[in-house]
């Protein structure tokens, strides 16, 4: 009897024989004990091999157990670089812009109060707003908290350090926003024409919103005004903070005046400092500012007296009155008339030399530095900063893509269809700032307005990156992994910036191109966000029954 060879037995066991041959082998082993034994031995050998190999006689080496952590750590350099660059940028920003401003403000008599703290942290700005915590504010805060919680939920669960830090910032922001809601009351007055009568005294902060306001009496606190015109003929013991078209101070303000609007005139007295962001500011001959005057304005006139320094960022400055300290001004032109009396140094940076009357009483000659209108593309620093910003934005994009890879892909994918993102981008680009301004003006929406502007700015930063990624995809084809996408984004972004930097020097139309890129990218990001957050109706869910006629949100209206 012919026996089966070992190869045939092995192939039979491993089911590698065709059906006919397998049946022959099967039939043969019914009758042949030796071949049956061989088959059994081979089968046992297979099992022994599998068992021997599968047994875990060695634990996973510590080096491998730590490998994942090390791999994770190996990416941490990216975070270190990102945060390092961010810190460097913040430092450069501080030393380059904020610190000089701060020094100038200090010199102007703000005595330790800088612009940032004045606007954001100073009690004077926030004081009195606390009782305006309307339902809308609460809803806005809750929404913010909800979005934050949803975003960080998974990361917090995993204990990501970054998430904890960001969550900490969110909590701080929440506390900062909530703090103003925790103090005393404010009196509100609304209407076409709000008046505080001559013999009337308001014993609290006063919030006024309306077309016009007139304070003939006394306000023992701060005054906040949102409207068109305000006259202060009476006495305000606190600060006056006004957002409006025109403000006239004819009476007495013991505190500071902060004005954001069109024009302000002081013919009365301001006890402390005055800061204005407007078109025209004038301290008339009888007017007096006890502290310093800081103006970001089109035109400033001083016929009255300023107790301390003058800090001006203006188109035109006309000085005829008295200044207790010095003047530091930057702008187009400055005139110092014969009646002027300035007790400190005068420094002016401008396009035209200052006109100084020989009769003016000056503590020292005017220092003048002419501002050169040198094209920025001839300036080496312009290119250095372009490179720094390009690198920083690429890192920003990298961090975003690492944090939100899916959203990033969706935004890039949305940008590849042109019509919808550009159309939506136009709407978002112009609409959000307008809506934010309206929200801020109506006060109740200030946190919402600030949040909207913040998100808008973030989207603006992302816009060029998204367009860069699309350009990168055109050149290299679509990337699959995160790093491929980041590479394409970086390549496309750099190319876009190079082309734009060149074109911007050649023709002003390049600016329109940049606007188009922003709108396109912003629209794509908005589309991705919309698609991510839009409610999804579960398939198979029964549709609601049709509503009866005359139905509103509140219920059925009587016919």
């Amino acid at each position, binding site marked *: 009897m*012919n*026996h089966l*060879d*070992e*190869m045939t037995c*092995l*192939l039979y066991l*491993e089911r*590698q024989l065709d059906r006919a041959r397998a049946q022959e082998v099967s039939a043969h082993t019914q009758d042949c004990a*030796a*071949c049956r*034994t*061989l088959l*059994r*031995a*081979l089968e*046992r*050998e*297979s099992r*022994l*091999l*599998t*068992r*021997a*190999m*599968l*047994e*875990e*006689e*060695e634990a*996973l*080496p510590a*080096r*491998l*157990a730590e*490998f*994942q952590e090390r*791999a*994770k750590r190996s*990416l941490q350099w990216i975070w270190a670089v990102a945060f390092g660059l961010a810190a460097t940028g913040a430092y450069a920003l501080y030393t380059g812009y904020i610190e000089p401003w701060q020094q100038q403000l200090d010199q102007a008599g703000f005595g330790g109060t800088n612009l940032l703290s004045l606007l954001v942290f100073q009690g004077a700005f926030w004081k009195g707003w606390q009782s305006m915590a309307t339902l809308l504010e609460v809803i806005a805060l809750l929404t913010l908290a909800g979005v934050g919680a949803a975003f960080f939920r998974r990361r917090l669960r*995993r204990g990501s350090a970054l998430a904890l830090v960001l969550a900490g910032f969110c909590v701080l922001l929440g506390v900062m926003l909530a703090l103003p809601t925790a103090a005393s009351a404010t009196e509100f007055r609304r209407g076409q024409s709000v008046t505080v009568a001559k013999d009337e005294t308001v014993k609290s902060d006063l919030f006024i919103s309306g077309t016009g306001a007139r304070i003939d009496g006394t306000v023992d606190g701060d005054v906040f005004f949102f409207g068109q015109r305000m006259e202060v003929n009476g006495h305000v013991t606190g600060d006056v903070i006004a957002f409006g078209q025109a403000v006239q101070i004819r009476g007495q303000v013991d505190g500071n005046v902060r004005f954001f609007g069109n024009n302000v005139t002081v013919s009365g007295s301001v006890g402390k400092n005055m800061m204005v962001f407007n078109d025209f500011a004038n301290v008339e001959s009888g007017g007096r500012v006890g502290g310093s005057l800081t103006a970001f304005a089109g035109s400033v006139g001083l016929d009255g007296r300023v107790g301390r320094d003058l800090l001006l960022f203006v188109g035109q400055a006309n000085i005829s009155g008295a200044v207790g300290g010095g003047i530091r001004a930057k702008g187009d032109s400055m005139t110092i008339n014969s009646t002027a009396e300035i007790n400190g140094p005068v420094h002016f940076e401008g396009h035209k030399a200052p006109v100084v009357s020989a009769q003016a009483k000056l503590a020292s000659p005017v220092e003048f530095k002419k501002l050169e209108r040198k094209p920025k593309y001839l300036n080496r620093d312009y290119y250095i900063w372009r490179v720094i910003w390009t690198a920083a934005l690429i890192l920003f994009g990298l961090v975003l*893509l*690492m944090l939100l*890879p*899916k959203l990033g*892909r969706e935004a890039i994918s949305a940008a590849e269809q042109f019509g919808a993102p550009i159309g939506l981008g136009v709407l978002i680009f112009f609409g959000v700032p307008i809506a934010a301004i309206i929200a801020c003006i109506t006060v109740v929406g200030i946190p919402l307005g600030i949040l909207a502007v913040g998100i808008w700015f973030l989207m603006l930063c992302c816009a060029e990156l998204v367009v860069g990624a699309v350009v990168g995809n055109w050149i290299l084809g679509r990337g*699959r*992994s*995160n790093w*491929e996408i980041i590479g394409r984004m970086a390549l496309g972004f750099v190319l876009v910036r190079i082309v734009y930097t060149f074109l911007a020097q050649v023709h002003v139309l390049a600016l329109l191109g940049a606007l188009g890129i922003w709108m396109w990218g912003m629209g794509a990001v908005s589309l991705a966000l919309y698609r991510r957050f839009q409610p999804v109706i579960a398939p198979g869910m029964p549709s609601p029954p049709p509503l009866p006629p005359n139905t509103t949100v509140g219920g059925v209206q009587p016919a």
Partner: protein
Amino acid sequence: MSAPGKTEPTEAISRAKAGDAEAWGELYREYAPAIFRFCRRALPTREDAEDATMEVFMKVRDKLGQYDQSRSFTAWLYRVSANHCWDMLRRRKIRQDKETEDLDNVPLEHPDPSQLDRLIEQRTSEEVRKALDKLGARARMALVMRYYSDMSYDEIADALGVRRAFVGVVLLRARHELRHALEGTSALAAGRAS
């Protein structure tokens, strides 16, 4: 390693494909022990196995975008591992070591079924593992691919760069090598009379 029949972590795979580092960590923790063992069986030293495991996972991380999720992730992972280990061995020029070359040319002796049965019965897993260490690279690689990771003949042929029809021969020669290592070359060569 995912036990046979165990559901593969498809959600973690999807998230890892999308660049989620945490999901990648989950996959690593799930599969690293099995891949290390695969490399440990296929490569000559423990250090080689550790290096190979890390390199395999680096490679998998880079290529995860190419992975077709309709197919088995485990099988794909083993294919990547097998290719990597075989490349490592080939780079060291031990793919066709002298011993294997010689054995390839020697006709296979037919084993005595009873003796083979006894031998298998008497040997422990540990002895088999020690014997595996003595095998030539290709023999060991073939056995590991087939009996550890359950790769098909097609996959083995693809990884080793041989024709499919030759895979059975490679496996049988590998078994003979193993038996030689376990008992000595002549113990089982009692050839049966036909």
